[in-house]
Each structure stands twice: as C-alpha cells, then as structure tokens.
C-alpha cells in the first residue's frame, strides 16, 4: 500500500529544513517516496566550487524530472583573496534550460558578458516563474544588468550586492516596465554605489519595499543613498536601513531562499 503524495509531503514537512541526510534516507524507503523526498531535497540548491564537481558528475543537465524540483538556485564562489577561482559559467549555462520552476536565482562572484542580451534564451525556461533575483559581487555592464532584469516580467525581489560595473560605451537603456516589489542593495564602501545611484532614477522604479544594508554606517556619502531612496520615494511603503553589524538579520532573511 502506498501513501498519497500529499500525506508524504505532510510527513516530510516535519523534518528540519536542512536535514538532507534524513531526506536521502527517506528516498530509499520505497519507490513512491522518491519523488516527494526529492522535491524537498532539491527545492533549494546551492552550487559552490566545493560541490560543483560532484553536481556535474551525478546530475545530468537534461534530467528535467529532477531539476524541475528546484525552486531556488544559488550559484557562487566564496570570495577569496588572493586568486580565488571562479566557477565556469559556460558549463553551468547548459543546466539552466532544465530549471522550469525556478523562483529565485542568485548569481555570485561571476562575470557576465555584455552580449548576454543575445543569450537571454538560456533563462527562457523560468522566465515566467522567476520572482527573485540576486546579484552578488557580479562583474557586468549596466546594459547587461538591465537586459537581465528586464527579461523577467514577474520579478518582485531584486538584490544587488557589491556589483562591479564594467565600462560600456553603449547608451543606457531604460526598463521596459517599472521595477516593482522589493529592492535590496548592499553596497557599503562599494565603488559601484555611485553608478547605481546615478542611474537608478533613470529607470522606472515603483518599489514598495527598499532595504539598504549599510545605509546607516559611516563611510559612503549619504547623497548616494538619498538618490536611491528618492527614486523609490513615491511608492515606498517599507524601508529597512541596516548597519553592516546587523547583517545577521539580512543573512537569516535570505537563508531560506
């Protein structure tokens, strides 16, 4: 006798969120338990340089059944100095078409080329499901940034953390639709802040929630933050101003995504 998936989901929901070991054990109990266990095991995937090789060896880019379970994907390399190694973005790109239900994508410590606008098709499988996007320590041009943000019509949560803007002589383009929902920035003592704050007013920003991490710390001229706040001003309903010392809160809020 096999239990309905709804019941198994309910039972598995009592396991601690990070208890991967128990979920793996559950997936071996019976054939009917595989799918519900996998759904939880793969709902949030973090790929780092430590697990990238095992990920590549064990999971096929065409394993749609498995990759369909992924709702949150974080792909990053921990910042290391000197000479930290970046994960190969091109190898990773072949996985993207199989993430059909991705809701949150976090890209960290990578370089995105300015011709990304011609390759946006790699995101097409989750174009209409993605609602949350994070750039952390990503090197890219403003043009590429706008192209990616604009590609996802239902995005409600954008996080930009320590961007490294590359010079690009192309005229900045506006977003085709207003940026809505939540905007979070973490650019304390970041050289990318002036460019971001200068260009943000040129976009259609109608965010109702703004989180400025480091916005209360001494360091950067507050005029940059003031421009960011004023850009959202008319629609802004909720504002969070944090000091870097209180990043615990930010980390916890984003940990489950």
């Amino acid at each position: 006798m096999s239990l309905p998936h709804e019941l198994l989901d309910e039972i598995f929901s009592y396991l601690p969120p990070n208890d991967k070991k128990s979920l793996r054990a559950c997936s071996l109990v019976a054939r009917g338990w595989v799918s519900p266990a996998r759904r939880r095991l793969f709902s949030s995937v973090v790929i780092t340089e430590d697990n990238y090789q095992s990920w590549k060896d064990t999971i096929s880019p065409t394993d749609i059944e498995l990759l369909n379970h992924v709702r949150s994907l974080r792909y990053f390399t921990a910042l290391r100095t000197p000479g930290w190694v970046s994960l190969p973005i091109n190898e990773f790109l072949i996985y993207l078409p199989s993430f059909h239900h991705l809701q949150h994508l976090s890209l960290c410590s990578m370089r995105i080329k300015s011709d990304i606008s011609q390759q946006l098709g790699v995101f097409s499988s989750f174009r209409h499901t993605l609602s949350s996007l994070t750039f952390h320590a990503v090197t890219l041009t403003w043009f590429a940034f706008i192209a990616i943000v604009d590609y996802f019509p239902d995005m409600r949560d954008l996080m930009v953390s320590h961007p490294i803007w590359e010079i690009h002589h192309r005229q900045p383009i506006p977003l085709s639709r207003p940026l809505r929902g939540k905007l979070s920035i973490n650019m304390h003592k970041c050289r990318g802040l002036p460019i971001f704050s200068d260009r943000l007013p040129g976009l259609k920003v109608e965010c109702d929630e703004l989180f400025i991490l480091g916005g209360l710390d001494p360091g950067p001229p507050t005029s940059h933050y003031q421009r960011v706040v004023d850009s959202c001003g008319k629609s802004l309903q909720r504002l969070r101003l944090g000091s870097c010392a209180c990043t615990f809160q930010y980390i916890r809020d984003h940990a489950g995504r």
Partner: protein
Amino acid sequence: MGNPLTLKRCPELCRLEILKNFLGETEHTVISSITSLNLHTIAFLPDTHCYSSPHYWNPLDNIACGLVNKLRALGYKHTLELELQFESAKFDPKLGFRGFLTEFRERGRVRILNRSSGELFNLAVRFSFAAYIVLRFLTHVVVKRVARSSLGSAHPWRDGEPRDLCMTTEISHVCSLGPVQRPSHGADCIPTHTGGMVAVLQPPVPTALGGCTSMDGGNWEG
C-alpha cells in the same frame, strides 16, 4: 559624510525598520525627517543588549514624541507604534521597561517582539515589565476597587470608554487564565490552573490623555 539621509520624499511610508545596535544622530535625523501620514510603525532590530541603556532610548523618546507632534499638525490620524524586536536568548527580563519610552507611551504604542518565540508584549502607558514576568506565573489575580466592568470582558477596567489597548491586552491575557470569582473582601479574584500565588492589583488611574497608569503602583502578595 554629507547630510544625513532624510525621508521627506516618501509620502506613502508605512513602516521603517532600523537594524542597528546603537542609535545616533544619523538615525535620529532619519526618524525626524519622516513626513508620511501613513506611518504605522518604526521598528528597531538591534542584536545586542543596547536597549537596556536609558542613554540609548531617552533621546529617542523625545524624537518620537516630536515626530508624532509634527505629524499630528499635518493631519496624522494613526497611532504610531514603536516596535523593539529581540532574540529571546539575548533578552534579560530583569531589565524591566519602567523607564522605557515613557513620554512616547502617552502618544503612541510600544511593542516588544520576541522573534524566536513570536511572543508580543504591549507596553501600557506606565507598564512595569517586571510585573508582567511575575504575572505570567500567577495563580490568582485579585483586584482591589474593581472598576465597573467585569474582569473577563475585552475591556476589563471600564466599559464603553476608549482605553489604552496595550494595558487591556496584558490584563486580558491574565484574565484568560480562569473564571472570575468574588472573594469575601469584595475584590475580584481570578483563579488560575496551577495554584500558588495571589496578586493584588490596584486598578489603573485614567490619565488626561486617555491612557492609564497601571501596575506600577500595584501591591503584591506572594
């Protein structure tokens, strides 16, 4: 550094959250600059015990009062809420909150939220937090000179009159422990299910601003 951040151009702002351990001029300027008539809550999320220091909160008391006065002059109709959030592991209930934003409590509402447990404490106008800690372990609450309404009602002290909701919440929490009994000396007595202690409270004295002084003047019988 330049001029501090201001929120003059945020007319729809409902909630401001400040994630910082020590409030200074910058934060005071930010709060004072609010002009939104939709403002409901200013929340503070420190990760240390800094809130135990009166030096930390006293300036904020004045600034929050000034903000409410300014907004009232502009037509502000809401009750502003100041919310302190903390983690239970870092919270010491012995601190008490007797002197905690006392001026502001007569103009708005102060809430303390335990993020771990989800517990929410509403501070009355002059509510002693230490009293609340004791109240949680009471078996009986005896009230001297009981006001007109019954203790079990939503507004236990007075019927039909606007009261400080925070106080009501605290008292109703205690009242919910058991049915009202009337002891021989005329006070109302609320037995609880665990047995042991009896508390005697003086009824709150209404203030000119519609709030009440509450448990600070209470007598306690162990």
